[in-house]
């Protein structure tokens, strides 16, 4: 226990030295708080229309202005954080569970099972992720769970490969043998002895994965195949704003900045974590 604490502490100290990554972590935590308490922070309901107040430039009452239906853009951006972050985290979580499961089985048992699973993963990899998402959306529609599934599925092979590779390198080490010798079952060996060893690379990949998922959803929503109105998704807000680019360009700014900041923070945190967790760079 003490050991795992010190590894965590060491990583933390090293992450702290990377100022951009550390700042990104705080911004992300702030965004998560905003997403959780969106109901308290947003001054108006996200779908409240006000026909007498459409296309207002930013003012004290509406700090990001209002859109073509008189909805408060600030409130919509705040609720958008909840949508984007939850889609990102859940899509990655699902992919991680599935990929981890398949990778662990493939690596641990080997043989034909390994071959079958990893060939299927190769197939999944050979379809571009966005296209796979498009195919799933085409077949099952654009509900929120479908979109999470659609963005998550294509990242499963990445996690499966990671977990499998780690398992292959450690499954024959003494402590695993020892655990087996005292009669620990396979499930416990995999979850207790082996998986903790994959945590570092998985954490890094998952951080980048959330960023990619957010971008995918925003792109799909932008072309109308993602979340449907009036759900305030940043991509679909941009798509609305595009029609008013001449004269009402302020509508573009806040959702665009929100996407860029969120993805930037996730990417730079992923970079920072990778450096902090890399044993080669450890003093």
């Amino acid at each position, binding site marked *: 226990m003490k050991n795992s604490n010190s590894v965590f502490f060491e990583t933390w100290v090293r992450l702290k030295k990377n100022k*951009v990554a550390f700042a990104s972590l705080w911004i992300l935590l702030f965004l998560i708080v905003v997403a959780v308490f969106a109901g308290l922070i947003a001054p108006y309901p996200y779908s409240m229309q006000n026909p007498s107040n459409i296309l207002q430039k930013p003012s004290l009452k509406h700090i990001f202005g209002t859109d073509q239906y008189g909805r408060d853009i600030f409130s919509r951006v705040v609720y958008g954080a909840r949508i984007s972050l939850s889609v990102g985290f859940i899509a990655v979580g699902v992919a991680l569970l599935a990929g981890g499961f398949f990778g662990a089985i493939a690596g641990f048992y080997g043989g034909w099972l390994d071959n079958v699973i990893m*060939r*299927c993963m*190769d*197939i*999944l990899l*050979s*379809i*571009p*992720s*966005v*296209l*796979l998402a*498009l*195919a*799933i*959306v*085409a*077949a*099952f529609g654009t509900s929120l769970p479908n979109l999470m599934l659609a963005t998550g599925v294509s990242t499963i092979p990445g996690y499966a490969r990671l977990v499998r590779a780690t398992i292959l390198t450690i499954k024959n080490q003494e402590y695993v043998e020892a655990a087996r010798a005292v009669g620990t079952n396979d499930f416990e060996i995999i979850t207790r002895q082996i998986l903790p060893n994959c945590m570092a690379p998985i954490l890094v990949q998952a951080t980048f994965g959330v*960023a990619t998922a957010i*971008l995918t959803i*925003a*792109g799909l929503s*932008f*072309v*109308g*195949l993602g979340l449907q109105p009036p759900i305030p998704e940043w*991509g679909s807000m*941009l798509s609305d*704003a*595009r029609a008013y*680019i*001449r004269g009402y*360009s302020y509508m*573009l700014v806040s959702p*665009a900045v929100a*996407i*860029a900041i969120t*993805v*930037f923070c996730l*990417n*730079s945190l992923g*970079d920072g974590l990778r450096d902090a967790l890399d044993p080669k760079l450890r003093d």
Partner: protein
Amino acid sequence: MLVPFTKGIQPLILVLEDIKVFKYIVRRILFLIPTLLLVSFFVFCIIKAAPGDPAQLALGEGATEENIEAKRIELGLDRPFIVQYLDWLYNIVFHFDFGNSYRSNISVSYQIKSYFPNTLKLSGFSVLLGMFIGVPLGMIAAVKQYSPFDSVVMSFAMVGMSVPAFVLALAMILLFSVTLHWLPSSGFNSFSQMIMPIVALGMQPCAICARMTRSSMLEVVRQDYIRTVRAKGLSESKIVVVHALRNALTPILTTVGLQFGALIGGAFVTETIFLIPGFGRLLVTAVTNRDYPLVMGGVTVVAMVVALTNLAIDIAYAFIDPRVRSEFKKGSGLFSHIRMKKEIMRSLEEAHEK
């Protein structure tokens, strides 16, 4: 191998090596077949799993029960699932026929043929732009690690990675079309129309290329042989370009290949913004209309293009990187463990003979 490397033997060894590479390439092409079969089956399954009756979709609302039944038979939907798949596959393989669109009744392959060139042009130019800007930037950043230039390039790359193409596209339209009136905001025929889409789509590959080049160069320049050539007094530019870059090229090439595939799949947003009659927009419309033959055909074709790109990259490795060439002999891919075993047996036998 104690054979002296005389001038007479060297070409022979090269030829032998070439045969091995040739064999690798053939094997790699053969591996394409099961991959594509499985991809097509996978896509077929997803679309067939969709709720709703395709015959009903094809006819639209207000179709009578008999009409729908007749349409089902006409579309072959009354046959067993596997027969439908094999029929679909047969037509693709032998006639490049993906069936007809439910909506317009135009042949899917015709539509793909007429829309694909634009997407190919857009993604191709974007990847080239990204490569020709990203790789040199990454190289210089690696050579001058921790310099101001390095940190500027890397921050730029980080931003480039995080700003999605459609945000960049909208920002450029706002600046260059709406405010300055320099560039047209839509279309893809003239040079001025092509600038913004290519830059918007090329930003992310450029950033990724720069990061990838930097990190793989950094790994290479720490190696002993670089120290050796430097000790030999080679000029710094020659060290970087001839010795370091060549060895760092494999991961860079992989990145470029993957980016090209990702762009063909991801170009639809950029195409939508700039109203480019491309493949991505065709596909988006197909998804919106639930035009299943078009979706299935489109996804399969893109998967094919991506698989071919990967193939081309893998073959290019063989010519660039001798390390990879020796790796082929050990084998990788579908039957790697069998080949590995054979290889080990053979080397044991050879050792025995000696």
